[in-house]
């Protein structure tokens, strides 16, 4: 059965088949003569007038079959005094590349029509752009700041917005060289802290007496209908809560124990990855990507180096590609082991299942440590190759013997035991089956990615849809399930662990065959200068589709715009849809089944 048929069977997928992006673009230009090509060198896509955006996007979705709005990005084009919003739209049925739409608007009064009413997946992304760039989205149902707080002054991702510790636009800072002088930023700041206030701003002191503001309204809504009276209560979960997987907060409105509304609140781990990334040189960003989804640092490295390699126009040698796939698939196992353990933790199987898979996770981390020097933050991949070759020995065993034992014995045994305990377990099934349902149609509309999307019956995996690295040469199945509940998300993750083991088994002989071959194309470079242009590169991370949007000028050593399409962040958009009608005890299970990591949600 082909992937398309699978989708058709599972839900009411659109009947229109997508044509390749070039054809779709040509078609669009015929329908809308006003749209024009983006003629900057090495840029792709078309520029649409703001008032036509809705019509173009709807034609693209309804008639041309591009139904998956993957990424919405804001860009500050300060030289042209313009702001830009970039949309990457894919076709679930046909796979392949994106249709890229761009809207350019005046920097002084930036208003763009919102796509959220039609594509709910744009909800959080548009709020993020409003928060960081100050672009208003006309028609957005709930346009508030998302990562910063409401009172925050200014739009920090704009190029002319300066932080308290600002030194220079580009790293490495000239003020520190020659000599490598250490500057303590605290000593230069008049408050001795990383804070700055608008000129002449005077705190009155009164506004601080009510500090419950930041906790939202913990409110009771009176029921005015006749008959039995019940009150709705608004409850805050988080940001400090053992089951929110980090510093995440949900404002839940409950009718008795039933959820009637849910608003996720995030930004408690917003570490300004993109702002810092735009000042860093390209290579400096690699260790930062480790800290995005900190459970799967190798995969994050992979996505980023693939993006910059496109800008540099180089390719890694064969051995490096195979090692990359090995590392990325091991990361997938590590991540899913953790995700499954936490999911079961959340439904009450406290810690025991987690500890079962934990042993194998530690073995893989030991291998990472031997290869890259660090357990979690590997910082292992480089543009055009890898930082190091595989180590000679891991835990006093030759590396290949260690990997063979891991893949052929330890992991299958551990998984078999884990499955024997959990998969058929009545309690686990009772808690997971039928809870947190998300239909295939909704999953696509909400731009869900990864196991969340595939558990809803959409067989979409970037490794197959738009193959990168050597994935087109490997034999593996796209794990897909059709019920769209927590149990199916659990099963998809279990399946993916098996598929990853299968992939690694195919990779190991290649590693032996390429022993001793180079792992870098050319010499290792620290100050790379790129060809310039725009690139959007995506990989199938354990959590879903991870995309890097990078633009740079010709011969630049720093990116102009560096944006991350974070799967955890966008998957959370569907959280309210999945939770309404369920009991509050199911909420943590639904959140656990999305498998978020706050480093990536907030970036």
């Amino acid at each position, binding site marked *: 059965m082909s992937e398309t048929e699978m989708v058709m069977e599972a839900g009411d997928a659109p009947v229109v088949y997508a044509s390749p992006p070039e054809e779709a673009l040509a078609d669009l230009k015929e329908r809308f003569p006003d749209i024009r090509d983006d003629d900057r060198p090495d840029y792709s896509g078309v520029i649409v007038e703001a008032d036509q955006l809705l019509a173009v996007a709807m034609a693209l979705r309804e008639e041309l079959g591009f139904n998956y709005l993957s990424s919405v990005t804001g860009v500050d084009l300060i030289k042209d005094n313009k702001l830009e919003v970039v949309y990457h739209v894919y076709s679930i049925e046909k796979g392949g590349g994106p249709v890229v739409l761009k809207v350019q608007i005046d920097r002084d009064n930036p208003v763009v029509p919102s796509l959220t009413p039609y594509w709910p997946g744009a909800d959080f992304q548009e709020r993020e752009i409003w928060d960081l760039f100050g672009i208003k989205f006309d028609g957005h149902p709930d346009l508030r700041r998302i990562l*910063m*707080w409401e*009172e*925050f*002054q200014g739009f*920090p991702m704009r190029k002319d*917005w300066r*932080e*308290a*510790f*600002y*030194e220079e636009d580009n790293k490495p800072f000239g003020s520190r060289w020659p000599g490598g002088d250490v500057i303590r*930023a605290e000593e230069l700041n*008049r*408050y*001795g*802290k*990383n*804070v*700055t*206030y*608008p*000129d*002449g*701003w*005077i*705190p009155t*002191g009164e*506004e*601080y007496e009510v*500090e419950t503001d*930041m906790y939202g309204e913990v409110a009771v809504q009176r029921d005015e209908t006749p008959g039995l009276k019940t009150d709705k209560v608004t409850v805050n979960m988080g*940001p*400090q*809560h*053992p089951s929110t997987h*980090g*510093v995440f907060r949900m404002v839940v409105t409950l009718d008795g124990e039933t959820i009637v509304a849910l608003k996720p609140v995030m*930004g*408690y*781990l*917003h*570490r*300004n*990855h993109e*702002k*810092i990334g735009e000042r860093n040189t390209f290579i400096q960003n690699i*260790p930062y990507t480790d*800290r995005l989804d*900190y*459970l799967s640092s190798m995969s994050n490295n992979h996505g980023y180096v693939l993006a910059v390699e496109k800008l540099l126009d180089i390719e890694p040698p064969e051995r490096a590609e195979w090692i990359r796939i090995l590392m990325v698939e091991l990361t997938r196992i590590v991540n899913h082991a953790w995700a499954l353990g936490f999911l079961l933790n959340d439904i009450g199987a406290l810690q025991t299942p987690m*500890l079962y898979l*934990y*042993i194998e996770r*530690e073995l893989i981390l030991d291998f990472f440590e031997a290869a890259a020097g660090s*357990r*979690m*933050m590997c910082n292992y991949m480089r543009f055009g190759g890898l930082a190091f070759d595989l180590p000679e020995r891991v835990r006093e065993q030759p590396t290949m013997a260690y990997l063979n034992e891991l893949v052929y014995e330890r992991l299958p045994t551990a998984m078999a035991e884990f499955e024997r305990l959990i998969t058929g377990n009545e309690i686990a099934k009772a808690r997971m089956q039928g809870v947190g349902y998300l239909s295939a149609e909704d999953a696509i509309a909400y731009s869900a990615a990864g196991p969340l999307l595939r558990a809803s019956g959409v067989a979409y995996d970037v490794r197959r849809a738009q193959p990168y690295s050597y994935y087109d040469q490997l034999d593996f199945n796209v794990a897909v399930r059709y019920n769209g509940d927590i149990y199916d998300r659990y099963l998809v993750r279990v399946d993916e662990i098996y598929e990853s083991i299968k992939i690694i088994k195919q990779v190991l002989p290649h590693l032996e065959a390429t022993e001793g071959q180079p792992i870098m194309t050319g010499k290792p470079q620290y100050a790379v200068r790129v060809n310039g242009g725009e690139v959007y590169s995506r990989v199938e991370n354990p959590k879903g589709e991870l995309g890097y949007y990078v633009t740079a000028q010709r011969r630049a050593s720093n990116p102009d715009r560096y944006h991350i399409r974070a799967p955890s962040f966008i998957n959370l958009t569907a959280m309210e849809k999945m939770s309404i009608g369920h009991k509050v005890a199911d909420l943590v299970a639904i959140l656990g089944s999305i498998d978020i990591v*706050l*480093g990536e949600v907030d970036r």
Partner: protein
Amino acid sequence: MTADASIPALESDIAIPDDVKDNVFITNISKLLDPVYNWSRRNSVWPMVFGLACCAIEMICTASSRYDLARFGMEVFRATPRQSDLMIVSGTVTKKMVPTIIRLYNQMPEPRYVLSMGACANGGGPFKEGYNVVDGIDKFLPVDVYVPGCPPTPQALIHGLISLQEKIDQQSLATVPWYRKNGIGTEIVPIPVLGPDLVDIRQLDLIRAEAKKVTEAEAA
């Protein structure tokens, strides 16, 4: 207990009969109480379930089977600050999160300790220059132990926890601040406020003075 070398015997002139010499030691009440008090506290430090970022993952690993924090009596992670002795600040402290952290700290009963885990909590780490990042939790809280690393390995965290135990060993009932009136380090830390930027209540006067300077400069 008698054989415990950590309890120093009091030098005294009292003659001890030879037949019980090995089983008796003479001390005074403060020298006996302090080691017992500290011995029981150092081996039952209960940390709070409080993960901020990447470091939290290593903290969980430290608590799990391989590194086994139970060896130190620290495996009882409490989900409420009211029952915890130790706050492990495990990760990047952001401006949006810091009021919550201070509130949690204020809710912890004495004696309480703060362990700053990793580069971010120590001083902002790689994210220091970010507009939403607090450059070190010690700008707000008194920190007992700093653990370097990004993230620190479980071994490093355990080393930090052992250092904390050593610190506890050196405390004395006679001088610990939490039994004193207005003891240093026991006061409630004012919770910072999210205004146009993070506002530290203790700096209000400084902020007003700086604002005045700006307006005066404009007038001139």
